């Protein structure tokens, strides 16, 4: 039951189409086993890196004897190291993520589809994928593992979490930055309905820890266009507050505020080298993922 439910967000056809394309990081990663990704350390792959003078303690097997024969000096030949990747998929479960537009999924469901697919793809290519769900009440934290069986745990949590409560993104992201010590790929799925400056500080914190950060910014078409013409009573998803309003009166100011928020976020992400993926939830998630993966395509060796 749980398995069936957990796989609700994973579409095998989509996965089958996307699995052809391996995914990488933009930064070197430190992994525990050999993998597809670049490591900051020298290793034993086939990719030549550099020559280095022999130092006592170096393995003499790595001395390049041909160079010694020509120059009468000891040089050590170094190769790039390839390692695996650890990916943290961070899902914002605040109340606003429950917003559902005229049709289709809520933002949370949409994010779950993305996460399930990405988790599958990462584990399938030998990387470790973990899940952190953030809300103001509780935090699910599934550490990244490479084991395919681990996927089930991820799916179970995805099935279980609901969107409720106020946004705790800022506090929680700082915690994540502190907790994840080794370099990792951190992907945040949220609508980022919070002040931009503190959010950017979180991102900066993550970047300081040398994580590769990707922000999936999810918004609904109604939130983006505000196409209402009749008086509406807006009921806040994160608090008991309601607001009766004439959309025609406030539309301009609303759109202006949204625009300013998006602009600040985009500019901040650019400043801290965060990859920002703006996603409108009426778009096809496969297309969104394909575009994302194309940007991170690995060179097939």
């Amino acid at each position, binding site marked *: 039951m749980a398995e069936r439910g957990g796989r609700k967000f994973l579409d095998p056809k989509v996965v089958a189409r996307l699995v052809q394309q391996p995914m990488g990081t933009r930064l070197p990663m430190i992994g525990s086993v050999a993998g597809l990704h670049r490591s900051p350390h020298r290793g034993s792959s086939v990719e030549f890196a550099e020559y280095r003078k022999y130092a006592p303690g170096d393995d003499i097997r790595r001395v390049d004897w041909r160079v010694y024969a020509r120059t009468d000096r000891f040089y050590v030949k170094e190769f790039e190291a390839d390692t695996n990747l650890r990916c943290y998929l961070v899902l914002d479960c605040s*109340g*606003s*993520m*429950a*917003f*559902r537009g005229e049709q289709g999924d809520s*933002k949370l469901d949409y994010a779950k589809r993305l996460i399930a697919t990405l988790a599958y793809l990462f584990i399938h290519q030998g990387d470790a994928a973990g899940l952190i769900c953030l809300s103001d009440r509780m935090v699910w934290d599934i550490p990244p593992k490479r084991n395919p069986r681990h996927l089930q745990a991820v799916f179970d949590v995805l099935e279980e979490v609901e969107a409720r409560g106020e946004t705790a993104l800022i506090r929680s992201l700082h915690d994540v930055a502190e907790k994840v010590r080794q370099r990792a790929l951190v992907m945040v799925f949220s*609508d980022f*309905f919070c002040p931009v400056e503190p959010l950017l500080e979180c991102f900066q914190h993550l970047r300081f820890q040398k994580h590769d950060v990707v*922000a999936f*910014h999810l*918004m*609904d078409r109604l939130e*983006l*266009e505000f196409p*209402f013409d*009749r*008086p*509406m*009573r*807006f*009921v*806040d*998803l*994160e*608090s008991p*507050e309601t*607001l*009766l*309003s*004439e959309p025609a*009166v*406030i*539309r*301009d*100011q*609303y*759109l*202006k*505020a*949204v*625009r300013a928020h*998006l602009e600040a976020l*985009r*500019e*901040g*992400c*650019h*400043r801290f*080298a*965060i*990859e*920002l*993926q*703006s*996603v*409108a939830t009426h778009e096809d998630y496969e297309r*969104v993922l394909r*575009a994302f993966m194309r*940007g991170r395509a690995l060179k097939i060796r």
Partner: protein
Amino acid sequence: MTFLEPLLLWGLPLALLPVIIHLFNRLRHRSIDWGAMMFLLSATRKSTRYARLRQWLILLLRVLALVGLVLAVARPLAGGWLGWMFQAAPDVIVIVLDRSASMEARMPGGNVSKRAEAARVLAEAAQSYKDTSRFVLFDTALRAATEVGEPSALPQLSTAGATDTAADIPATLQAVVEWAQRNKVGHFEIWLASDLQASNWQPDSEQWKVVTAQIAALPQTVRVRLLTFEQPPVTESWSVQITEVLRRPRAEPPEVEVVMMIERNNPAPAIMPISIGGEGTRAQVDLELSGPSYRYRHKLPVESAMASGWGRVELPADDNPRDNVAYFVYGPPVLLRALVVTDDPAVGRILQLAAAPFANDTNLVAEVVHPDRTAGVVWNDYALVLWHAAPPGGAVAAALHQYLEAGGALWMFAHGQPGQFEGIAWGEAQAAEEGKSWPITQWQRQEGLLANTEENLALPLNDLEVRRRQPLGGTGIALASFEDRLAFLSRRVVGRGELVACSVGLWPEWSNLREGWVLVPAVQRLLQTGGRRFTQAGMLSCGQIVPTGGGEIWTSVEGAKDVRLHAGVYRSGLRMVAVNRPPAEAAVETVEPAKARGLFGPVPVQMLGERKQGEGRLQAELWRMFLFAMLVFLLVEALLILPPKPETAPAVRFQMKGGTP
């Protein structure tokens, strides 16, 4: 504020419709669970001032537009509101109705006369003051006050009916002022309806200043409302006027010549049937008219040379039926007396014969008198004075001036001595070279003394041999000139009379003028001109006779008519007169409405122009105004609800690829 359709004011609550719709809309709002509350709150905070103001303004404009519409369809009256806002209804409303003949012209596009339309419009406007004001009608024909009990009966009142009179607007206003002073009325308004005909309004008259000053000086408030009907006729219009009725005593059978003038507003050639008739007889003549004005002489056979009678000339119906009929009367031939003043008996005899050529014609009498014996002459008894002596001076000159002013005719011949009279001067006598004379080459052949005969034969002026002359100077107009352009005969109008000066004397050594080929017809014509005041005594303008209490009773020969008001033929005892529309009523000049308003000087005037028949209400302008206001409100509302100008980023830009470094 009063309305013609007050029931429609029940529609005023409709103006609350936008407010109700607004409230209803707010009530039937939709609820939605919303995530992006932070933007919503920020927008609500920021958009309060202007957007809310705009929203309320739109609501207000919608309400106002509906109010304007309801008020417009309820037909608000001008009275007591706009223009005269917040002023109490006057105690008395004096309706001054122009009843002149020109007001009988039809309204453009209708079959109602301007006078009837004016009466209708005024009666309608008066309805709203029925309970508060008293109405007094002053008509321009009688200039007497008529109390009007029920304003709606105004068009039916006999004192508002058609007349053939002229109107004297300043004199009528004067009568109103005197009436107001006499009756000590309270605040009053003068509602004046007229076609602004210039001859009636006399814009140059000094009386305007007097009467408006009097109105302004009245202790009570007086306001004037002007209802104008100055539109020219849109269809063809013509009028007939009898200028002269002449007896032709020598004709066989005896006949009367009726000279009439037909004026038209369409100068294209046309054939017009006119009907001319008297008691029992009637003749139809088809006239081929060309040009805007046509003079026609009609010979009417009469029973005897002494017969008297009357007749009328009638044109087909047109825009104004009042100016298509003219009446004339004729009586026994009038005695025309001529006086020859000369110191030369031979000349006296010639002139006497020229003035009275037939010894057995007792209607033409000529007397000769020596210049020294003119002291006791009663000049006004004469139709013509032929002066062949030195120009008069002193008392005689003054008496002759009066005679001319009264309509007499005077012919002065050269007498050899230089001199001047009434602005015409005779110079030093000149003699032509031996065996030569000054030929006369130019003279007025169309009209006047030297005009061609009825058979279109020219007077033989070129046969005149002038050997001596005294050149004429001064202000006269030359009727005939010599080859060297000096005047032979000069004419000057003095008052109603006519002065003719001749540069030649009647002595044989001066010229052969005494032979009579030119002299006799010219003298006879001048005699007729000078005698017109005797022969045309029976032709009067309507309004000229105002019966006094002296027992003079005028009765119409055809039906019951009032001699003061209507054209026609009237008898009083043995005297018979033809009363016609005053000639000035045919004039088309009108006073500009703005100028008419200016004539009132310090008195407040409101213009109420009437444009179309059927919209003829004083209140018409008001509902248009409300309708206009409604349109303005709707236009402003439309401008306010227009979406704001698209900014640089028209919609929220949400891009797939964000800040990838």
